[in-house]
């Protein structure tokens, strides 16, 4: 018997993997050794706080040992009725079976198809789309191995919408800049500021114990213990009494879905009429304030946005709204709108950008950056040392597609783009147009117009699907099924680890392996880029050598190897690899980091991980304190476009101020009456004031999932399916997603706890299991998004799904006329007990 232990890293934290005779025996959280760097200590209000000496991983991490082996694609496959030289039978995608193929045959087929379509139609006829985070590691991540390959061969890039914080990107930067953070605020040293100075946290559409900072495992769970110990009040505003709120709330405030902006306006109304906001700060730092105030006070439309007005709109008590506003003004209050300050579900609604803008307005009115007052998601901003450099996957120095990690950086020669949420329309209708580049790192990118097909360009004919699935994450996803059957897509390739929902729609399937089956290198919870210093959502900075623990399962190969093999068949192997092995690439990333000052690469591989020490004494630079105090920015916010310039004391808005009236919008989209100069509440186009409400009287909200990660893990581990807060096994053996409904809603429809129920509207049917609970109001149904399971009753056809992809029911309509973001939390449905066959 041979036993070995390796280090590795997941999207939910760092792990030690024990392997017995070539099979994973256990996956345990990394526990720090005595010799590792010491923990930091925060002293606040007479208490000393220090984190435990271990990583606290997300629950799904403990399923890795099952996930690595379950539901895997064991060898290359070709659809049995797909003949590249004859009938392709696209109409059978999703239905037909597969035959086993050799790697040679599958790779040759794919390479020949690339050559064929690119020479027949042009390079732009290839397109490729990725999920995020099915694996962790700088080499394996999509920007790296995938990005290098497709930039090299040329392809129509599919622009991602920022689906996890949609409205924040399209709204907040017009108020306060932070485009380089895609609209979310800087988080620096906010844990310490909160513990020292804050009296109350208003968690607005925020469930920190579920979202866990994105990639931070459960590192902040202990922060909430500390906050409770100090008596910090916790207010949760959410149509669902979420998993943090139900344990932690001093007060749960439950607005009707889609009306959060009305509540925000009423809070402002109280502050304005009672004079309880930071007037001097607003005078000094705001632009266009009076214009917006006129709207709040009703001078523009005759409707003062009073608590009584909002109470009607939101289904709340007027007295509670007034009390909230007064508490907020009286106390040092942090506004927490999601993991990175702007990740909550309220922005995934119709006009979600308006709510996001209002959040920045409210934080500004109470003194953005004043001690204890801020816009902070309560999931970042630990006192770790951010000066030690290690590249994150979104940074150039961790990316084999980018110099200097590669010698030759390939630029994608194709300028045609697609937009992710609109891909089915592009294929089915042949033409789409939209404004904005998706992940807009600069404000100006929000105003770029795109048309597909671009003038002089071919439509796409080859779709390459890489990792993950959109059936449970995009909107109106029965359209994805229809799209796959289109003859316009001459070839569909899936490069995938598991049999995911979209995998069986491919013509050729290339089995990839997990990050436990190949080497890689990464830092824990360090995505870089727009979430620079995301590691501050963890209590330690831990840099990990991700050892290959086991041989690739079945005939699977690493993504890098697959791309190398295809490149070879295109005559471009060296162009892709630069004659470098995986280890050669990893060493280049290592050499670009400060790790070389700590130990040589080979020693690091043996050690497996390194904990970056905190420099004592620390010199905290809390977020926005510089702005409150009118100093140049002193935080380590490296990608800021104004920090370190002569405008370093300003925000990156046209006026440098907090723009209650946005000059960027006035200049670029003066005709837009939905995202106008100032933010305002507008009833949802699919909500209680829309026509559809008569037919479908229930709001469906689908926040980010608690037990899976994106669509990952959910379908890859039955251990998660056995968690009764996540799924429940039906009599037919299917693990149904839990849908939470109020007792009144259930009683009216004769639904009992545990019944299989049909969530339906004109877009489709999704079968879930009924959980009857007080945690939603009678008008709301809650079911988590990101189902990794997709089980249509009629295989390969839009039909009732018992996997739980509730996004089938969400409209593909954009947030507003000119804002391309999506709005899955503006979905109306009805429910009934399912009486049909299962």
């Amino acid at each position, binding site marked *: 018997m041979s036993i070995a232990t390796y280090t590795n890293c997941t999207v939910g934290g760092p792990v030690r993997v024990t392997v017995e005779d070539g099979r994973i025996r256990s996956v*345990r*959280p990394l526990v720090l050794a005595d010799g590792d760097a010491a923990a930091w200590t925060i002293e606040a209000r007479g208490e000393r706080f220090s984190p435990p000496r271990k990583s606290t991983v997300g629950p799904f991490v403990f399923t*890795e040992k*099952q996930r690595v082996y379950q539901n895997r694609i064991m060898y290359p496959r070709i659809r049995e009725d797909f003949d590249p030289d004859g009938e392709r039978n696209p109409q059978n995608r999703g239905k037909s079976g597969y035959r086993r193929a050799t790697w040679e045959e599958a790779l040759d087929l794919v390479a020949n198809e690339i050559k064929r379509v690119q020479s027949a139609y042009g390079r732009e006829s290839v397109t490729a789309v990725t999920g995020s985070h099915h694996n962790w590691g700088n080499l394996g991540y999509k920007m790296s191995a995938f990005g290098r390959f497709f930039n090299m061969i040329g392809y129509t890039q599919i622009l991602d919408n920022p689906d996890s914080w949609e409205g924040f990107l399209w709204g907040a930067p017009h108020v306060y800049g932070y485009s380089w953070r895609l609209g979310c605020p800087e988080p620096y040293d906010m844990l310490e500021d909160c513990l020292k100075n804050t009296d109350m946290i208003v968690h607005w559409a925020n469930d920190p114990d579920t979202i866990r900072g994105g990639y931070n495992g459960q590192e902040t*769970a202990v922060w909430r213990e500390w906050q409770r110990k100090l008596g910090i009040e916790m207010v949760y505003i959410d149509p669902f009494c979420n998993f943090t709120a139900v344990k932690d709330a001093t007060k749960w405030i439950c607005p009707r879905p889609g009306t959060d902006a009305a509540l925000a306006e009423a809070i402002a109304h109280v502050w304005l009429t009672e004079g309880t906001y930071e007037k001097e700060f607003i005078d000094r730092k705001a632009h266009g304030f009076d214009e917006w105030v006129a709207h709040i006070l009703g001078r523009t439309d005759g409707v003062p946005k009073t608590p009584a007005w909002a109470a009607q709109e939101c289904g709340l008590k007027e*007295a509670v709204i007034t*009390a909230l506003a007064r508490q907020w003004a009286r106390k040092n209050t942090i506004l927490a709108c999601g993991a990175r300050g702007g990740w909550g579900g309220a922005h995934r609604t119709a006009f979600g950008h308006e709510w996001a803008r209002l959040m920045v307005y409210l934080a500004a009115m109470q003194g953005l950056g004043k001690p204890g007052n801020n816009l902070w998601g309560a999931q970042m901003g630990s006192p770790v040392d951010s000066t030690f450099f290690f590249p994150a996957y979104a940074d150039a120095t961790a990316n084999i597609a980018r110099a200097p990690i590669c010698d030759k950086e390939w630029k994608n020669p194709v300028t045609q783009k697609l937009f992710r949420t609109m891909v089915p329309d592009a294929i089915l209708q042949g033409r789409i147009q939209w404004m904005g580049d998706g992940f807009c790192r600069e404000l100006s990118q929000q105003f770029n117009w795109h048309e597909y097909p671009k003038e002089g360009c071919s439509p796409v004919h080859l779709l390459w699907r890489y990792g993950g699935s959109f059936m449970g994450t995009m909107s109106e996803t029965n359209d994805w099924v229809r799209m796959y059957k289109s003859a316009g897509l001459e070839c569909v390739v899936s490069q995938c680890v598991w049999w995911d929902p979209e995998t069986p729609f491919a013509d050729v399937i290339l089995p990839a392996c997990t990050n436990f089956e190949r080497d890689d290198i990464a830092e824990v919870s360090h995505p870089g880029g727009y979430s620079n210093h995301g590691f501050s959502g963890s209590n330690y900075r831990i840099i990990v050598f991700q050892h290959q623990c086991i041989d690739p399962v079945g005939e699977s190969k690493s993504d890098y190897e697959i791309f190398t093999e295809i490149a070879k068949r295109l005559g471009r192997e060296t162009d892709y690899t630069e004659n470098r092995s995986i280890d050669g690439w990893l060493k280049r990333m290592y050499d670009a980091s400060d790790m070389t000052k700590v130990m040589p690469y080979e020693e690091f591989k043996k050690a497996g991980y390194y904990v970056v020490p905190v420099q004592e004494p620390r010199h905290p630079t809390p977020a926005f304190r510089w702005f409150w105090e009118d100093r140049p920015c002193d935080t380590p916010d490296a990608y800021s476009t104004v920090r370190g310039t002569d405008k370093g004391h300003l925000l990156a808005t046209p006026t440098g101020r907090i723009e209650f009236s946005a000059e960027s919008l006035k200049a670029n989209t003066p005709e837009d009456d939905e995202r106008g100069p100032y933010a305002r509440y507008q009833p949802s186009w699919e909500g209680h004031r829309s026509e559809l409400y008569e037919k479908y009287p229930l709001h469906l909200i689908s926040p980010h999932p608690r037990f899976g990660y994106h669509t990952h893990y959910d379908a890859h581990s039955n251990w998660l399916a056995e968690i009764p*807060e996540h799924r429940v096994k039906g009599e037919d053996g299917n693990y149904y997603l839990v849908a939470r409904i109020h007792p009144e809603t259930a009683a009216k429809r004769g639904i009992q706890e545990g019944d299989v129920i049909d969530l339906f509207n004109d877009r489709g049917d999704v079968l879930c299991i009924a959980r009857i609970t007080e945690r939603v109001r009678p008008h709301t149904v809650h079911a988590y998004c990101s189902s990794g399971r997709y089980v249509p009753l009629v295989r390969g056809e839009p039909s009732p799904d018992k996997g739980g992809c509730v996004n089938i029911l969400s409209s593909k309509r954009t947030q507003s006329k000119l804002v391309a973001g999506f709005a899955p939390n503006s979905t109306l449905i009805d429910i009934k007990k399912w009486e049909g066959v299962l």
Partner: protein
Amino acid sequence: MKNYALIVDVEKCTQCYNCVLSCKDEHFGFDFLPIAAGCQELEQHWVDVRITERGKGDKVFVTCRPEFCLHCGDPACMRFGDAVYRREDGIVIIDPVKARGRKELLDSCPHGAISWNAEKNLPQKCTLCAHLLDAGEKEPRCVEACPTSCLNFGDLNDPESRVAGLVSEHEALRRQDGVVRYFGEPGRVITGSVYLDEKEVCEGAQVELIHGDECVARTRTNGFGDFKFRNAPEGELTVSIEYQGKAPVHYVCEDMDSDREIVLA
């Protein structure tokens, strides 16, 4: 000699299921004889989380309680002969060889902590990862995986240990004789919201909880007009609310948990 304790601070459980899942990770697919044979992949849990939703409307809350074998001081399961034994450190083990086929062990446990491994024809339960402790590790997998201070493990014979501290601090823990002990579960919860009228909450009203003739707890409504008593005594209780210039309000609570909205006249 060690005298192990696993002390569960119920209030700190966030229902993350790390304990449940780390247990599966440890025990599925591998045997650790003579302590434990591997568990079933599905439909068997040696640790589970019992979640109870309580309260109504905007006062809804849950209590969640990770449930293990208690490793009782005087285990009922041991009355079934030599298939079960209690170690000197307190851990109770079902012998994975001698217990084969002994389904009657399931009914012996008053806490329902023993589950049936149908694939191995074997009654099984939590071993507190004794195979790891015996190999020198500090704590079971569930405790290592717990992200909060809900699960606390250590040696009661070490007066400096956290568990010894907790036992000396909480009388409830001293009344339990197993290795696994619980504290911090909210008892009866009495809540309410007090309003002056439809426009204003009533902050600072004095609220008393009266049991018999005795005031057992007293608080004031907070900035939202809310009050909350945790661990109210059983039986008939009267809530009395007073606020300057308003008629006092008294009402009787009969339910286990109670929540009222009161508009003062």
